[in-house]
């Protein structure tokens, strides 16, 4: 499978990365090189093989349902580019 410039622009939109016409063209050939490389996976017979869901066989650890952390609003917003009273500020999203 290979991608065209139109697909690359659509994927960039999904990934929320602004691309110029020039970027999109360069990315198209780079992405096609990688997609061409991974194509060889199709020759592997995977019938009856489950996809890997866990690297090491282990049961998901569960902790007690109690509060172990919190009350750190100032710490959480400390690195944000724009805040007001412990809220993150973003451009207006609702008209």
């Amino acid at each position, binding site marked *: 499978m290979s*991608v065209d410039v139109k697909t690359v622009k659509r994927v960039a939109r999904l*990934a929320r*990365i602004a*691309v110029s016409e020039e970027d999109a063209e360069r990315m198209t050939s780079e*992405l096609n090189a*990688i997609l061409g490389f991974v194509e060889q996976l199709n020759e*592997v017979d995977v019938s009856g093989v489950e996809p*890997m869901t866990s*690297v090491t066989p282990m049961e998901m650890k569960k902790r007690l349902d109690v509060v172990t952390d919190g009350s750190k609003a100032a710490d959480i917003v400390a*690195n944000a580019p724009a805040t007001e009273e412990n809220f993150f500020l973003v451009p207006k999203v609702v008209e």
Partner: protein
Amino acid sequence: MSDLTHLTISQARAKLRAKEITAAEITEAYLQAIERANPALNAYVVVTDDKARYMAKASDAKLAKGEGGSLEGIPLGIKDLFGTEGVHTQACSHVLDGFKPHYESTVTANLWADGAVMLGKLNMDEFAMGSSNETSYYGPVVNPWRRSRLDTVVMPTTHQGDGGFVSAGGTRTARTLDNAQLVPGGSSGGSASAVSAFLCAGATATDTGGSIRQPAAFTGTVGIKPTYGRCSRWGIVAFASSLDQAGPIARDVRDAAILLKSMASVDPKDTTSVDRPVPDYEAAIGKPIKGMKIGIPREYRVDGMPEEIEALWQKGIAWLKDAGAEIVDISLPHTKYALPAYYIVAPAEASSNLARYDGVRYGLRVPGKDIVDMYEKTRAAGFGREVKRRIMIGTYVLSAGYYDAYYLQAQKVRNLIKRDFENAFAAGVDVILTPATPSAAFGIADEDMAADPVKMYLNDIFTVTVNMAGLPGIAVPAGLDAKGLPLGLQLIGRPFDEETLFQTAHVIEQAAGTFQPEKWW
């Protein structure tokens, strides 16, 4: 003073405990070495000198009372991927501009609890994506190793007056260093370069597809990627969560064992952290390997592999045989599919993990006409080319209609790769020996690699299988090539059997010796 930087961690530990040296002295020696070398090597992106002096002072107070942890007063460098409280943590990306976390990663917290001293944050490929440390926002790291040429020098006949000796002439060979700058490998290039150039006693690193083992091999250092789940991932900037593991880069096998013992832990904050006690890895060093079964996988003999790598592999086989191990040929039939499967799984996970860099909660923000425009402009300005490429691939393979063909297929192949190893271990193989990399270090701004991303990816051909299967792997220096550059061998072990890796790697180290670059910086 500068001699102090040449002590291994085990030597420094003994001298600190015996009060022959102080943590302040050794820390000062490293800070001076960094100041002199860093303009040439670019291994550190931040030097935390005040913090280092403060921590060293605290260590000296403990050592004076005969107290202190297993790493008390040992100065270390920390890869920029580890969250360090109040200190620059940017994964060497522009998108995390100015980020200073209000928390400490579990791995670094373990090191500080054991008394280690932080020298600074080490350069790396942006978000650990790269095999040459050239994708860093802070510029490439330079390998302290350079190619050299063996020249035959004709010695002149000289007469010296007062001393009265006469040299009769004749010839000798001398190595002349080439000026070309080489990459230290990546993504943990700053860690490998700093350890190799004596700019820290040891360093933390991370490995998603070979990012500890390939730079270790390129710089003549020892690097171990432990079993998935051995070191907590909490507080480490995530790249591909099912593949990422932290581990140390050190100057010898014993130092790597000492560091891993401190870094590894069971952590309730990482659900994939495995609930088993951390053994004393150092105790495994020096145990005989007589009767051990060493697997040699035929699929690791790849087309176009330099003869020197093949010769090095044979040397490794001979050393282990001499030490009484049994050598067996094995087959890992799905080896060639590991790299293509990795280039689906890793970008897919990365595209999801890196979705958080949106200009809202931390780091860079580029204003836009609305929120989506702000996201798109921030991410376009904040991520470098390689990172964008991988996010794009990941987004594509996970997008509607392509998920089964790419991602599901890759995760199935991944199980087959894991099964290959399981079969080998079930047949009685204790450890697998392979080359660490398909070549020695290459030049900065290599044109072939820049023109074709897949060429760069092929650096990880021998290491990536280990991440796909979640196994432990160690790279240990085994010799120099004809141009005087270090080459490494890799040992792959059973899950959580890092002890056997240290034990076997030490046998290789005893036979091969350790390697230091000639100082030019």
